[in-house]
């Protein structure tokens, strides 16, 4: 099976879908001729023409607003917001329009739309190129929110998102584009070509939304993670020797609560990790759900390791980022309680 980087897998998903369905269109800032600042759409304009893959004015509300209109017409737009941090001008279009259209029109109009956004930190991007705004989307009824952690999932999840009849927020951890980054920023990059999840099947396949996956079986503790933090969690587990069960959520909404519940009932302990800020982060929702569904199985309080509640800093990036050392400490503390 061919090995691909995550950005190649994402591009492959759009290629497969543009080939299969004339209604799939792709656009955004620098997306057309140049192929995107992360090269996510490279070659698509040359292959499918300018009316199906094109550059847009720098106007995120315009990109998503136009896409809502196109989706209502019957197209399947898959648009790129250059960085998730630039999403805010489009938030009204996402929340009040894309997410509500099916409901408010009683199904007369629908919005099969994918909004791709590079997300997360680790690239010296400071506060405007590093944010993880997933909780701003999971809080909105009518949206689905997806965060892949590897090339194989990224392709299957993106194909599923493009085929989905409803709007999907597709958050791409940009630090994973070229390799399974585990938080050790001072070590050489491991490429996806050396990782088994860099194996990306050819052609069309789907990773269904709403299905988590157990990345590592374990008996001592359940570690809930998504995106980059899956790899950080793997590193922390390897370094501490804690026999944790690592669950890669893959989709935050709909959430695979069944898989989480089964694991926590087995292990009796739960640690939740994410890059995003702590307060009202998605970890708070996970923590509440674990408490509601597994309270009598819990041996220790549910613990969260997250980014601090500060803007994402520039020079202090690695003091902000919840790396393997911080995650490892939380694992050990949870086991000692």
């Amino acid at each position, binding site marked *: 099976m061919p090995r691909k980087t995550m950005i190649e897998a994402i591009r492959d998903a759009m290629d497969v879908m543009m080939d299969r369905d004339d209604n799939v269109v792709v656009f955004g800032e620098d997306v057309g001729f140049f192929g995107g600042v992360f090269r996510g759409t490279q070659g698509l304009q040359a292959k499918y023409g300018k009316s199906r893959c094109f550059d847009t004015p720098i*106007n995120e509300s315009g990109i998503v607003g136009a896409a809502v209109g196109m989706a209502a017409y019957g197209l399947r737009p898959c648009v790129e917001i250059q960085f998730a941090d630039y999403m805010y001008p489009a938030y009204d*279009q996402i929340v009040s329009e894309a997410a509500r259209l099916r409901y408010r029109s009683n199904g*007369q109009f629908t919005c099969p739309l994918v909004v791709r956004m590079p997300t997360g930190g680790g690239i010296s991007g400071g506060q405007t190129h590093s944010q993880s705004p997933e909780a701003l989307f999971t809080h909105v009824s009518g949206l689905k929110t997806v965060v892949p952690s590897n090339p194989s999932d990224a392709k299957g999840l993106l194909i599923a998102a493009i085929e989905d009849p409803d709007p999907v927020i597709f958050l791409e951890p940009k630090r994973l584009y070229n390799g399974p980054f585990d938080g050790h920023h001072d070590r050489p990059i491991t490429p996806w070509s050396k990782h088994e999840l860099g194996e990306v099947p050819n052609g069309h396949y789907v990773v269904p939304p709403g299905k988590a996956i157990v990345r590592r079986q374990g008996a001592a503790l359940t570690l809930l993670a998504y995106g980059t933090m899956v790899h950080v969690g793997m590193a922390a587990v390897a370094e501490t020797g804690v026999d944790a069960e690592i669950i890669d959520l893959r989709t935050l909404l709909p959430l695979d609560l069944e898989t989480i519940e089964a694991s926590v009932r087995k292990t009796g302990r739960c640690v939740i990790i994410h890059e995003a800020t702590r307060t009202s982060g998605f970890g708070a929702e996970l923590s509440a759900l674990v408490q509601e569904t597994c309270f009598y199985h819990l041996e220790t309080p549910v613990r969260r390791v997250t980014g601090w509640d500060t803007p994402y800093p520039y020079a202090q990036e690695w003091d902000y980022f919840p790396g393997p050392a911080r995650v490892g400490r939380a694992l050990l503390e949870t086991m000692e309680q």
Partner: protein
Amino acid sequence: MTDYAPLTLHVPEPAVRPGGTPDFSSVGVPRAGSVARPEVNADPESIRDLAYSIIRVLNRDGKAIGPWGGLLSDEELLEGLRHMMILRTFDARMLMAQRQGKTSFYMQHMGEEAVSCAFRKALLPGDMNFPTYRQAGLLIAAGYSLGDMMCQIYSNERDPLKGRQMPVLYSSKEDGFFSLSGNLATQYIQAVGWAMASAIKNDTKIAAAWIGDGATAESDFHAALVFASTYKAPVVLNIVNNQWAISTFQGIARGGSGTFAARGLGFGIPALRVDGNDYLAVHAVAKWAAERARRNLGPTLIEYVTYRVGAHSTSDDPSAYRPKTESDAWPLGDPVIRLKNHLITIGAWSDERHKQAEAEVLDTVITAQKEAESHGTLHAGGKPSVRDMFEDVYAEMPPHLRWQRQQAGV
């Protein structure tokens, strides 16, 4: 130390406030028929003056004058009059229904009936409007059921939107009426996107975007003009300038721009101003803009100069912010009376027939209202099901919503 005087902030004020004498001297009203009608493929640079004038067809004597007239037959004009009369009567009955507590909220069109009623006749089946809350004439002129509109207003068991939307936020895909949001300006760029989709698919359909004078200040208005201009989208961009955005006069949104239409000029979009109370002029300009879109010549911006005679909605009182007699002083008159007078002038209508038509229209509206009320009103009779509250959030209900529906006991 500086040689400059301290800076001061400029906050525009309307010419008159309550207690003052209405003054519309700033609205320059050209003679009917005096504005030229360019070819639809005219160079936008050569017709920039149209953004500063007002295209008018009907003069004070009820005659249709000049190059924008002559497009509609007597039958079509009579139909237009009937649509406006239905809309006005519908409004009156629903306002009363709101006062009677049969709904919580209503928004009337008084004074603006010609804009949506006449515009609709320039569209073809399959075209799509992205309306605001004051374009119900688009539905009425499309032949949409008055009863269904009322059931939506009453949120009753027959509400086509199952009680999910506030009154008047209709949706009818079949009639080319996109689901109303309630947020302002968001639909303007969506209309451009819909039109781009039609072009991408090499379709023949066009879109129409709608916005009020106040909401042109929103960023999405700018987004729509940029996208429409860049991609030459087949869309008609409509601005209904009814002078008031709730309590805020149009000068707050317009700022230093001469007119709202002039906003289009910087984008290279042909921009026209039209007498919004002149059914013939509205239709002619809409037809011109639609023709441009259909011939792939790109977007057109139209400013309809009109006046909101009533309150913004049933939730505000205009006497608190503008003179009570202001609407009487509005220089462009009443759209229903002007079309009626024109039809009488050309011998196609009479006062007697008009009185008779008023009675017939009232009867039609009351019949629809009785039927609608037999299915319930906001607080009495048939209601949408609570179960429906959980449907259509997604195509397929996810587990967490299924659980919540069980918790709600439905």
